[in-house]
C-alpha cells in the first residue's frame, strides 16, 4: 500500500506545473542570468593595462629618459602595466574628461600627475612615478655615499627583483562570485518548501476537500504523511541535482572535489526545505495564497541574509550577529557549500549539516504533532 500511495503521490506532484516552475525552472533561469551578468568576473579580476596620457611640456634629456622608462613599462611582453599615449596637452585633457584615460602625466620641470578622482588605478600610476623619483633620489644619495665609501658602483645590481612568492593557504582559489551560486542553491533548497506546503494542504481536512477525503481513508495518517514526504523529497532532490548539474556542467561553477558530499548537502537541503514548508502549512491558519506569500517572503529574507543579492551579507552576519547564521537555514546551506569548496569535509562542514538536520527534525516534529489525529473546529 505504501508503494501505491508513494507512486500516485509522485505522479501527482510531478504534474503540478506551478510548483515545478518555482522549484526547478526558476532557480535555473536565475542561475543562467547571474552567470551572464557575472560572466566577466568568474575568472577573477584580470589586470588590465591602465590607460595613461603623457604630455611632454619641456623637452630635455632627463625627461626623455623618463619617458623611455615609462614606455618600457607599457610594452612589457605579456602583461604591460600601462596603455601609454604621448599626446598634446589639450588632447590629454579631452581624453581625461571623457574617461578614455585614467590619468595624465605631465613631464615638465617636475613630473606631475593629473587625475579626476582618487582610485587604485591612479594610485598605481602615482606609485610608478614615485618609484622613479625615489630611485633617482636614491642614486643621488648613493653618489654621495659611494664617494666616501669604498666599494665599486659597478658591483651593484640595479635590476629590480621580486621578493614575494605566492603561497596558497591550502584549499581552493577564493572567488567571491561562487558565493552567489551557493546562495542560489540555498534558495532552491528553501523553495522546496512549496512541496511541503502542498503536502500539508492535501492532508488537512480543514484546508482542502482533498485533505478531507484523505482524512476519511482508512490508511494510517503517518503512512500518508510519510509517503507524501518521500515523494516530495524524491522530486525536490531530483530538481536540485538537475540545478547542480546545470551549474557545474553548463556554467562551470566550482563546487570543489567532493561531489558526493555536495549531493548529500542537496539531500539535506531538500529535507530542510520540505520540513519548513510543512511547518508553515501546518501551523498557519491563513489561506493558501497568504501561506505561499509567507514562504516566498521568508525564503527570500533568509537567502538575502545568506548573500544572494549582496554577496558579503553572509560574512557580515557571521561576524556581527553570529547567532543568526546558525539559525538561518539558507546561511547554513550556503556555508556548507562554501566550506566544502574551501576547506573540504572538515568540522565546519559537518557542523552545518548537523545543525541543518536538527532544524529539519524540529520542523518535522512540530508539523507532525499539529497534523496528527487532528479534529477540526470548522471545515
Amino acid at each position, binding site marked *: 500500500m505504501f508503494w501505491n500511495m508513494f507512486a500516485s503521490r509522485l505522479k501527482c506532484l510531478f504534474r503540478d*506545473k506551478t510548483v515545478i*516552475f*518555482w522549484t526547478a525552472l526558476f532557480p535555473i*533561469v536565475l542561475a543562467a*542570468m547571474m552567470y*551572464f*551578468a*557575472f*560572466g*566577466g*568576473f568568474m575568472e*577573477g579580476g584580470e*589586470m588590465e593595462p591602465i590607460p595613461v596620457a603623457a604630455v611632454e611640456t619641456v623637452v630635455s634629456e632627463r625627461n626623455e629618459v623618463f619617458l623611455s622608462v615609462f614606455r618600457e613599462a607599457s610594452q612589457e611582453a605579456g602583461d604591460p*602595466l600601462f596603455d601609454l599615449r604621448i599626446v598634446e596637452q589639450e588632447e590629454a585633457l579631452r581624453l581625461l*574628461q571623457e*574617461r578614455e584615460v585614467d590619468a*595624465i602625466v605631465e613631464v615638465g620641470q617636475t*613630473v*606631475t*600627475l*593629473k*587625475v*579626476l*578622482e*582618487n582610485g587604485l588605478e*591612479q*594610485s*598605481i600610476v602615482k*606609485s610608478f*612615478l*614615485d*618609484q622613479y623619483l*625615489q630611485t633617482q*633620489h*636614491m642614486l643621488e*644619495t*648613493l653618489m654621495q*655615499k*659611494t664617494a666616501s665609501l*669604498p666599494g665599486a658602483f659597478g658591483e*651593484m*645590481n640595479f635590476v*629590480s*627583483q*621580486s*621578493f*614575494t*612568492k*605566492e*603561497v596558497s*593557504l*591550502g*584549499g581552493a582559489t*577564493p572567488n*567571491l562570485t561562487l*558565493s552567489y551560486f551557493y546562495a542560489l542553491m540555498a534558495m532552491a533548497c528553501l523553495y522546496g518548501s512549496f512541496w511541503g506546503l502542498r503536502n500539508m494542504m492535501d492532508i488537512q481536512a480543514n484546508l482542502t476537500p482533498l485533505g478531507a477525503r484523505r482524512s476519511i481513508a482508512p490508511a494510517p495518517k503517518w503512512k500518508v504523511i510519510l509517503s507524501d514526504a518521500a515523494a516530495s523529497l524524491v522530486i525536490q532532490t531530483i530538481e536540485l541535482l538537475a540545478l547542480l548539474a546545470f551549474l557545474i556542467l553548463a556554467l562551470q561553477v566550482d563546487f570543489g572535489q567532493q561531489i558526493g558530499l555536495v549531493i548529500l548537502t542537496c539531500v539535506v537541503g531538500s529535507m530542510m526545505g520540505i520540513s519548513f514548508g510543512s511547518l508553515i502549512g501546518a501551523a498557519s491558519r491563513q489561506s493558501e495564497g497568504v501561506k505561499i506569500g509567507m514562504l516566498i517572503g521568508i525564503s527570500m529574507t533568509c537567502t538575502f541574509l545568506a548573500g544572494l543579492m*549582496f554577496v558579503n551579507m553572509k*560574512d557580515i552576519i557571521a561576524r556581527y550577529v553570529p547567532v543568526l547564521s546558525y539559525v538561518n537555514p539558507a546561511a547554513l546551506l550556503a556555508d556548507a557549500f562554501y566550506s566544502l569548496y*574551501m*576547506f573540504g569535509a572538515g568540522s565546519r562542514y559537518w557542523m552545518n549539516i548537523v545543525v541543518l538536520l536538527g532544524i529539519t527534525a524540529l520542523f518535522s516534529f512540530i508539523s507532525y504533532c499539529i497534523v496528527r489525529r487532528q479534529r477540526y473546529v470548522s471545515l
Partner: protein
Amino acid sequence: MSVFNTSMKILRSKLPILLIYVVVIVMVSILMMAAMGSQENVSDTFEQKGCAITVINRDLGGKLSEGLEEFLFRTNQKVSIDDDKEKLQDALYYENTAYILLIPEGFSEAFLAGEEVFLSKTTLPDSIESYYVDMQIDQYLNAVRLYMQAGIKNTEEILEFVSADLDSSANAEIIVSENPNSDDSQLHIFYFNYLSYSMLALMILGISTILISFHQKDLYRRNLCAPIKLIRMNGELILGISVFAGACYFILIGCGLALHWEKLWDFKLLSLLCLNFLVFSIVCVGIGFLTGVFVRSYNVQSAVANVVTLSMSFLCGVFVPQSIMSASVLKFSQFLPAYWYVKANHLIGSLSDISLEQLKAILGCLGIELLFAAALFAAALAISKKKRFMDCL
C-alpha cells in the same frame, strides 16, 4: 466610467503584491544610501589610494620587517586578522582583505645577511591590488639591497636612507572635473537603474491582471453585448492603465526623493533621468500589454513577471554594472530595452555639459527605447486581434 472604475478596483485587490515592489526599491535605496554614505567624501587633493592588507609578522623584533610594515601602512589600510588559516581564507574570500603578507621568522636577519629569502603572500589571483602591493614591497626591499651592495653595513642607517628616499614623491593633483557631480551622480544612476526593475515588475503584474480579468472569454462577450462602444471600453481600459502607470511612475520617483532629498536633488540631472525613466516606463507598459495578451492565468503571470524582470535586470546591467559585464553578453543585451535605459542613465550621469554631441547620444538611446515600445505595442495589438477573433468562435 464603469470600465475605468472596475479596472481600478481590480488593481486595488492586487495591492499587497504590487506594494512588494515599491518596498523593495525603498529597502534597496536605503541600504545603498547607508553603504554609500559611509564612503569618504570626494576630496580635491590627491590621496594615494591603498588597499586593505593584512600583515602577519612572525619576524618579531626584526628591524627590516618593522620598517617594511610601517612603509606599507603609510598608504594601505591595515586589516588585523588572527594568524589562523581558516579565518585568513574567509577574509580573503569575502574580500575583507586583498593581500595577506606573511613575514617569516628571521627574515630581517637573513635578508640583511644577503641571503636569498622571500616573503609569502596570498592574494586574490591576478588582482590589481596584488600587483600594487607587490610593487611597493619590491621597491622597498630593492632599495635596501642596493644600499647593502653599496657597502653600507649599518642597518639603521640603511633604513633611514630608504625611508628618506621613499619620501620623495611625484606631484599629483586632481583636476576639478567640468562635471562636478561625476561622483554624486553614482547615487542617481544607481537609484534610477533600480527603478527599472520595480517599474517593469509593477507594469507586468498590474496591466496583465487588468487584461486577464477583462479578457476572460465569456466576460469579454458579455462586455460586447453591452451598449458601450468597443473604442470607449478600450479607451477606459487604456485610461486605467495610464493612471496606474503614472501613479507608479510618481510613487517610485517620489519614494526616492522623499527618502534622500538632499542627496538626490539636482535639477538638471533629475530632469533628464526622469525623462529617460518616463520613456522606459512606456516600454514597461508595452511589455505589460504583451504579457496581458499572452497570459491567461495568474500562476503563469507571476512566473512570467519574475523571469522577465530578473532576466532583464541581470542581463542589462541593472543589478550588476554594465562596465564589468562581459562584452559578449552586452552585445546580446542590446536587443533588450533595459540596456538602452541603463546606458542612457550612465550617459546622463557622466554628462559634463549639455553639449550637442552628448545629448545626441542620450537621445539616441531614448529613441531606441521608443522603438522598442512601438514594436511591443504593435505586437500586442496584432496578437490580441487574432486571439480575440479565435475566442469568439
